[in-house]
């Protein structure tokens, strides 16, 4: 048991299905398997958007051990949309400084200090069990979400109109029919295996020891690191340190004065042996020195793979998170990308279930998230190859980079101890409306880009842009005064809101004023929104419900605005 955390035990109620007439098979529009961060994100999102959802998990508690640790800005923004971002930020440890050591010396440090004027920081460290607990709390507030613990899916039989799902519980087994099945049952994905679906990639022949320790005193961790730096909310990465020769070590702070230490062990290490406290404690003592008493909280030895499924959609079975793709831990691209899978999937699934989009829209869930997974795989594989060189020449180059990095900035950019998770720009997506050839936009908010946040005023009060543009299609129109729109524009705004796939309008105004019918207003008081979006007066952006750019124009004619936006939304929903 952990000294800093008590695992909740969630109550299991007897499923009503067990008391049905034999042969009864209840139908559910969506069943999600796996109440980890990805399954919870999908289920919460579905329920928030008004779809009844059944979430099944084979356990009755949250993640055992700290596991997924770093939550990146985009994941936090999605968690905000799901109603649990603030709890994560409040409990988590925000860090910006990273230090890199080679041998006994600090080679350089970096400050991730994020660009100003974003609500969320670049990265927050938090034990996965806290994240899951907050998400479960949120899930339990949603009336449309049924969360069933200790419910193990033993068999999935795909059918043309869904999947038949066999569920085992302590009270007995039952069968249900899911119109759509979202599979988020983790890296080992029993459902993926049972269906015989391949997941291809590279196995890394290396083992890592992961230890969570509770510091008894605030550490000024300098004894073994040449007196440089003092450990606060920082990430420390060692290549070939004296206390663990020829391998790498990573140290991170978590909530509750818990510290995560990752030791590279090499392929020949015996995982069972290495997990024993009598092996682990001396390793940590060698690292921290004699003056830092600590208590061992949790230990695990892991290997990892970099691989993904060919496609994430298989008829009415949709795979998300680690079940669909796995990366090395360097760069925090696991849970972060899984949460983005859910973000991408849910609005599409909702439109398909409501009959407002053809099911081919769900093929784009696969193509878009496969592209994102490939970017994550590329970056995390490169980090792994840098951190754990596989040949003498590879080690020579790595050491050469590290010895040049102190003095030469080009070498610092080559030091790759993890390229930290950032959202994929879905630039190749067929859902994007390409820019007009003549249109020149400054910045990076091209079609497919995840929206950049910015401070705005709403009703005279400080607010952020992202929460104004969520869960639905939004036309973001840059105007001077909201009260001075021409009749065609006002007509377009009203008509767009009344379409089957409603498009809400957000006026990004230079000056405040009353919102016209069917629109909301924010004031871009610092000009940050216009700058980040390369916008002029009259610039229009269409945003998807997952806060990605679908289309944009500079000063479209007001009499063509409605047609342009409708066409872009049709394209973004496979209705074109």
């Amino acid at each position, binding site marked *: 048991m952990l000294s800093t955390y008590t695992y909740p035990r969630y109550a299991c109620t007897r499923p009503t299905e067990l008391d049905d007439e034999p042969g009864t098979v209840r139908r559910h529009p969506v069943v999600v398997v796996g109440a980890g961060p990805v399954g919870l994100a999908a289920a919460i999102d579905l329920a928030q958007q008004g779809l009844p959802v059944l979430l099944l998990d084979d356990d009755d508690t949250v993640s055992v051990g700290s596991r997924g640790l770093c939550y990146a800005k985009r994941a936090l923004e999605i968690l905000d949309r799901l109603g649990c971002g603030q709890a994560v930020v409040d409990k988590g440890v925000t860090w910006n400084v990273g230090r890199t050591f080679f041998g006994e010396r600090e080679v350089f440090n970096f400050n991730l200090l994020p660009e100003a004027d974003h609500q969320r920081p670049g990265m927050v460290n938090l034990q996965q069990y806290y994240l899951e607990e907050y998400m479960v709390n949120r899930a339990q507030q949603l009336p449309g979400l049924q969360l069933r613990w200790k419910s193990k899916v033993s068999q999935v039989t795909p059918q043309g109109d869904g999947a038949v799902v066999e569920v085992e519980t302590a009270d007995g087994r039952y069968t249900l029919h899911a119109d759509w099945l979202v599979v988020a049952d983790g890296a080992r994905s029993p459902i993926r295996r049972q269906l015989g679906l391949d997941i291809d990639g590279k196995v890394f022949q290396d083992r890592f020891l992961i230890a969570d320790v509770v510091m008894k005193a605030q550490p000024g961790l300098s004894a073994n690191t040449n007196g440089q730096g003092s450990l606060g909310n920082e990430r420390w990465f060692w290549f070939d340190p004296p206390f663990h020769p020829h391998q790498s070590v990573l140290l991170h702070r978590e909530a509750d004065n818990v510290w995560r230490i990752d030791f590279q062990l090499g392929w020949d290490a015996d995982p069972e042996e290495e997990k024993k406290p009598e092996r682990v404690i001396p390793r940590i003592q060698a690292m921290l020195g004699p003056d830092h008493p600590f208590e061992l909280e949790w230990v695990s030895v892991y290997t990892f793979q970099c691989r993904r499924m060919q496609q994430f959609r298989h008829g009415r079975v949709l795979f998300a998170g680690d079940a669909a793709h796995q990366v090395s831990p360097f760069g925090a691209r696991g849970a972060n990308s899984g949460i983005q899978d859910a973000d991408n999937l849910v609005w599409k699934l909702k439109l398909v279930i409501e009959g407002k989009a053809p099911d081919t829209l769900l093929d784009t869930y696969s193509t878009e998230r496969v592209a994102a997974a490939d970017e994550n795989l590329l970056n995390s594989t490169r980090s792994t190859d840098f951190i754990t060189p596989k040949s003498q020449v590879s080690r020579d180059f790595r050491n050469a980079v590290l*010895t*040049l990095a102190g003095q030469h900035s080009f*070498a610092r*950019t080559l030091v790759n101890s993890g390229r930290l998770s*950032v959202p994929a720009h879905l630039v190749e997506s067929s859902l994007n409306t390409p820019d007009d050839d003549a249109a020149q936009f400054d910045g990076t908010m091209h079609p497919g880009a995840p929206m950049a946040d910015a401070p705005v005023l709403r009703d005279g009060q400080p607010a952020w842009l992202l929460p104004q543009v969520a869960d639905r299609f939004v036309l973001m129109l840059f105007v001077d005064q909201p009260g001075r729109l021409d009749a065609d524009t006002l007509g377009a705004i009203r008509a767009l809101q009344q379409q089957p796939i409603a498009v809400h309008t957000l006026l990004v105004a230079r000056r405040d004023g009353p919102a016209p019918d069917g629109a909301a207003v924010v004031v871009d008081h610092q000009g940050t929104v216009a700058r980040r979006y390369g916008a002029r007066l009259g610039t229009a952006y269409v945003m998807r419900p997952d806060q990605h750019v679908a289309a944009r124009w500079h000063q479209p004619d007001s009499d063509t605005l409605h047609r342009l936006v409708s066409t872009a939304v049709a394209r973004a929903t496979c209705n074109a």
Partner: protein
Amino acid sequence: MSTPHLITTPNFGVPGTTYLRAFTPGDDFYEALIATHQGLSDEQSRLLNARLVLLLANHIGDLRVLREALAAARAGATPQEVSP
């Protein structure tokens, strides 16, 4: 001190290409570099590296740049005692 000729700030990339992430072109190069050595013995790799230095040196040509690069590469290395 005279103005250096050797560029030691990040300089990888394809001219005219903008990169969303500053680290990408350097990582592209590094991956290609390691991949070039794939499957070679240590001895073959040493020869490859020497050939690579010569090819790049000739491409650069400017002896001022090359002398600065040679000095930067050597910095910090102490010659080993050689017994007669």
